[in-house]
C-alpha cells in the first residue's frame, strides 16, 4: 500500500490487488462519515468494444445505464433496501465514460463495503426482471425528455456528431431500451466488470491497512474468469457537423439555444490533453466570464442573459466547445464569440487569479467525498493520476495559454434552438 505524496496533507493510499483492481483508501480519522465508490470505465460511449482476441461486441445505446439499474437486483430482494437496512445510503450513476456505484454511511464500514463489492461483482437477472425494468427506465427517459434544457443539450449533440456515441442519450431511447436483451446485458457485464477493469475508492475513519486487508479477503474469497482486456472502439467521426442549424419546438418558457463548435480531437499524451483542456477553460473564463469587464455590457445590452454558459470537452476521439444562451439572437452571439476567439486575451494576472480560484476549489474537493472519489477515479480512467493532474494545472504558464489559443478552430459550427410551443 503506497501513500500518495501531495501538497494538501491528504492521507491517501493506493494499492493494486492480485486480481488487478485498483484501490484508493482516503483516511479521514477525524470524521465519522464513510464513503465508498466502485466504478468501471464502461459507460454510454461503449457501443462497440473489442477484446484481447480481436472480437468485436456491439451494444444498444443505453446498455451501460440499463445494466446499472439491473445490478441492484438480488435474487431475494433489492440491494438498495439492503443498504438502507444498515443505514447506508446508496446510489449509482452512469456517465458517458463510466458507471459508478457508491454509498455513504457512518460507523463500521465492513458491512456496507462488503455489500457494495458483492453486489457489483455478481449479476443475477432474468428475462422477466429485464422486461420489468424497461418500464421504469422509459419513465426515467420521459422525465428528462420533457425538460427543455435537457432536450436542447441532446439535440445539440445530435447536431454535432455523425457517429460518435455522444449523439445518444446516456439512457438510450425508448426503442433501444425495449430492444435490450438479458443476453446483451450479461455480455456487457462479463466484459466490463472484471476487477482488473475497476477502481474502488474508500473514504474512512478506520485504519487503512485494516480496511485494505478486509477488501483483500473479500476478493480472495471470489474467483474471476480471465480478464478479457476489453477496450472501447473509437468511432471515426468526420470533422464536419451533422446539422449547421436546427430548430425544434416544445413546451418551454423561453427560447434558448446552443452554439456548438466541433474541434479537432487531441490524440497525444493523456495528461497533456487534460492540461490543454484546462488551458482552454482558463482562456474561456478570461474572455467570457465576469472576469471580462465587457460581460456587464453584454448583459445590459441583452446579448447574453444569466443563462449564458460555456463548456469545453476535449476527449481522445472528439472535442467540442459549447455556448448556451437564452433568447433569439444566436447569430449575433456567434459573431461575438468568433471575433473574440480569433484573438482571445490571455494575461498573467488573470492566469494567477484563476489559479488561486482553482486552488480553493481543489482544497474544497477534499471534504466533498463524492466529488473526491469521482475525481480520483476519472483522472485514472483518463490516463493520469489526480494529484499529477492538479499539479499539472497549477504549472500552466502564460506561454502555454498563448499556444493553446490555436486549438479554437471554429470552422465547424452548429446552432441548435428550442422555440416555444405552449
Amino acid at each position, binding site marked *: 500500500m503506497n501513500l500518495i505524496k501531495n501538497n494538501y496533507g491528504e492521507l491517501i493510499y493506493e494499492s493494486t490487488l492480485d486480481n488487478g483492481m485498483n484501490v484508493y483508501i482516503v483516511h479521514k480519522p477525524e470524521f*465519522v462519515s464513510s464513503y465508498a465508490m466502485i466504478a468501471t470505465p464502461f459507460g454510454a460511449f461503449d457501443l462497440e468494444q473489442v477484446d484481447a482476441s480481436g472480437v468485436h461486441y456491439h451494444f444498444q445505446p443505453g446498455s451501460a445505464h440499463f445494466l446499472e439499474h439491473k445490478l441492484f437486483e438480488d435474487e431475494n430482494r433489492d440491494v438498495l433496501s439492503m443498504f*438502507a437496512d444498515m443505514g447506508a445510503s446508496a446510489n449509482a450513476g452512469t456517465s458517458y465514460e463510466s458507471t459508478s456505484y457508491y454509498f455513504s454511511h457512518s460507523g463500521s464500514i465492513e458491512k456496507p463495503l462488503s455489500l457494495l463489492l458483492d453486489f457489483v461483482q455478481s449479476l443475477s437477472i432474468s428475462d422477466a426482471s429485464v422486461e420489468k425494468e424497461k418500464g*421504469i427506465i422509459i419513465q426515467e427517459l420521459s422525465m428528462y425528455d420533457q425538460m427543455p434544457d435537457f432536450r436542447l443539450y441532446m439535440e445539440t449533440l445530435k447536431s454535432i456528431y455523425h457517429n460518435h456515441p455522444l449523439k445518444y442519450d446516456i439512457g438510450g431511447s425508448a426503442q433501444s431500451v425495449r430492444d435490450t436483451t438479458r443476453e446483451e446485458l450479461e455480455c456487457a457485464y462479463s466484459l466490463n466488470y472484471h476487477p482488473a477493469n475497476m477502481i474502488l475508492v474508500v473514504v474512512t475513519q478506520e485504519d487503512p491497512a485494516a480496511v485494505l486487508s478486509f477488501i483483500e479477503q473479500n476478493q480472495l474469497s471470489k474467483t474471476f474468469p480471465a480478464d478479457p482486456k476489453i477496450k472501447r472502439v473509437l468511432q471515426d467521426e468526420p470533422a464536419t457537423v451533422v446539422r449547421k442549424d436546427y430548430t425544434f419546438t416544445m413546451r418551454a418558457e423561453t427560447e434558448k439555444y446552443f452554439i456548438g463548435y466541433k474541434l479537432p480531437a487531441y490524440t497525444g499524451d493523456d495528461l497533456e490533453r487534460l492540461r490543454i483542456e484546462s488551458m482552454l477553460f482558463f482562456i474561456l473564463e478570461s474572455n467570457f466570464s465576469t472576469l471580462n469587464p465587457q460581460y456587464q455590457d453584454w448583459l445590459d445590452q441583452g446579448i447574453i442573459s444569466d443563462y449564458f454558459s460555456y463548456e469545453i470537452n476535449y476527449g481522445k476521439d472528439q472535442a467540442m466547445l459549447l455556448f448556451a444562451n437564452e433568447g433569439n439572437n444566436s447569430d449575433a452571439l456567434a459573431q461575438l464569440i468568433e471575433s473574440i476567439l480569433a484573438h482571445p486575451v490571455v494575461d498573467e494576472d488573470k492566469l494567477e487569479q484563476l489559479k488561486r480560484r482553482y486552488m480553493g476549489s481543489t482544497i474544497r474537493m477534499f*471534504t466533498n467525498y463524492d466529488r473526491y472519489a469521482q475525481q480520483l477515479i476519472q483522472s485514472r480512467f483518463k490516463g493520469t493520476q489526480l494529484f499529477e493532474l492538479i499539479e499539472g494545472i497549477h504549472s500552466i504558464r502564460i506561454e502555454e495559454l498563448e499556444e493553446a489559443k490555436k486549438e479554437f478552430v471554429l470552422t465547424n459550427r452548429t446552432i441548435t434552438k428550442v422555440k416555444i410551443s405552449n
Partner: protein
Amino acid sequence: MNKIQLNQNVVLFTEPTTRFKETTLVLRYMFPLKAKESTVAALLANMMQDRSEVYPTKQAMDYASDMLYGLTLSARTTSIGKTQMIELRSRCINGGYVQEALLEQQIQFLSDCGERVLMSEDTLNEAKKTLRSALLRDREKPVRLALKQAMQAGYSTQPIAISANGELDEIDQVSLSQIKAFHAFLLDGSRIEVSLVGDFDQSSVVDSLKRSFHFYDREILLDFAYQAEKSGPRDLSVQENLSQSTLVKFISTSIAPTKKIFTALRLANCMFGEIPSSILFQEVREKRSLCYSIFSTLLSYDGLMVVVTSVDDANIELTDTLVDDLLQQFKQSADADLLQSAKETLLVRYQTIDDDAYSIIDYQLRNNCLGLTETPQDMMDQINACGIEDIRQAIQYLQFSFNFMLRTKEIAE
C-alpha cells in the same frame, strides 16, 4: 454550537474546530413571510450576491473573492413556515494552507455583500431580469411547477402558498425605493443570525464581526411552525403540454415539530416514502414499474406531508388510488423491519451532522426556529426509543388534505 448574544435579536453561533479545510460563514436575515414582500426579498437577495458599494463591478467582486482563493458566495431566500429568510453563505479555505490571514477578509466581504449592497436602477433591473428568468425556468421543471401550483391552489390563504422566491407578476412593480426600504428594515429590524464554523479564535472573531457589521438591538417576533389548512375543493387537475403527468398529494399531519411524537412521524415518513425499502418506492416503482421517482417528504413547518410522482397519464388515476390504499394499509399495519431500516437511516444522518459545516449550521437553525436545545445525540436517543406503537399512533393523525394532478394536455382533452 456556542451562542453569543451580540445584540437583542442578533446572535452569533460558533463552532471552533480544526477538522475542516475551510471556514464557513453564514449570515441570515429573518422576517415574517408576506405576499408581495417575498418578491422584494428575492430581488434583494439577488442583488446581494451581484455587486456591492465596495466592489461595484462583477469583475471587482470576482477579484476580491479570487484573492481569497476562490471564496464561494451564494445568496438565497427560503421560507420556514411563517418566516422568510435571506441567507448569504460563504466558504473560504483555511488561511493556514497559504500562510495568510483570510478570515477577517472573509468576514468583511460578507458584510459588504449584506450591508453595502449596490442598489441602483441598473442593478435592480438586472436582478429583475435574473429573477424572471429563474422563475420561468422553474416552470419548465414539471415537478416544481406542479408543487407550486398545488400549494397555491390548495392552500391559497396559507403561508405555504407564498413563494419565498417571489412571483413573476410582482417583479415589475417593485421599485428601487422599496428595495432600499426593505434593505434598511433588514439591517435594523430583522432577526439576524451569524454562524461560523472553522479554525479561529473566538474572541477575535467577535471583535472582527463587530467591526465589520453594524448590529443594533431590534424588536421582532417571529412565528415558524403552523398547521396549513386547505382552502377550496379536495381535488384539482390542470393540463400542460407535457409527456408525463405529475401527481402531488398533500397529507395533513397535525403534528407540530416541537411535539415528542414528531420523531415518530419522521420515522413514519421515512418508512412510507423516503428510502428505497419504503412502501411507495417498493409498491409503485419496483413492483408495478409505474414510475422512475416517487417519494414522500415532510413540510415540517407547515404541518404537511407531500407525496410526489410522475407517471404516464394513462396510469395517474391508478397511481392516485394506489397511494391512497397504501396509506390506509400503512395505518393498519406498520412493519417492524421497515421501522428498523428507517431508524438506521435517520441515525446515520444525525451521527454525521458534525462532519459537515453546513449541516452543523442548519441543525442549529432548526433548534433556533423551534426554540429547542436538542443535541444530535438527543435526537438519536429519541429515534432509538421509538417503537412500532409510536409509529402507529403518529400515522393515525395523517389525513389526505389536497390532491393535485398536472396532466398531459392531449389526454385531458
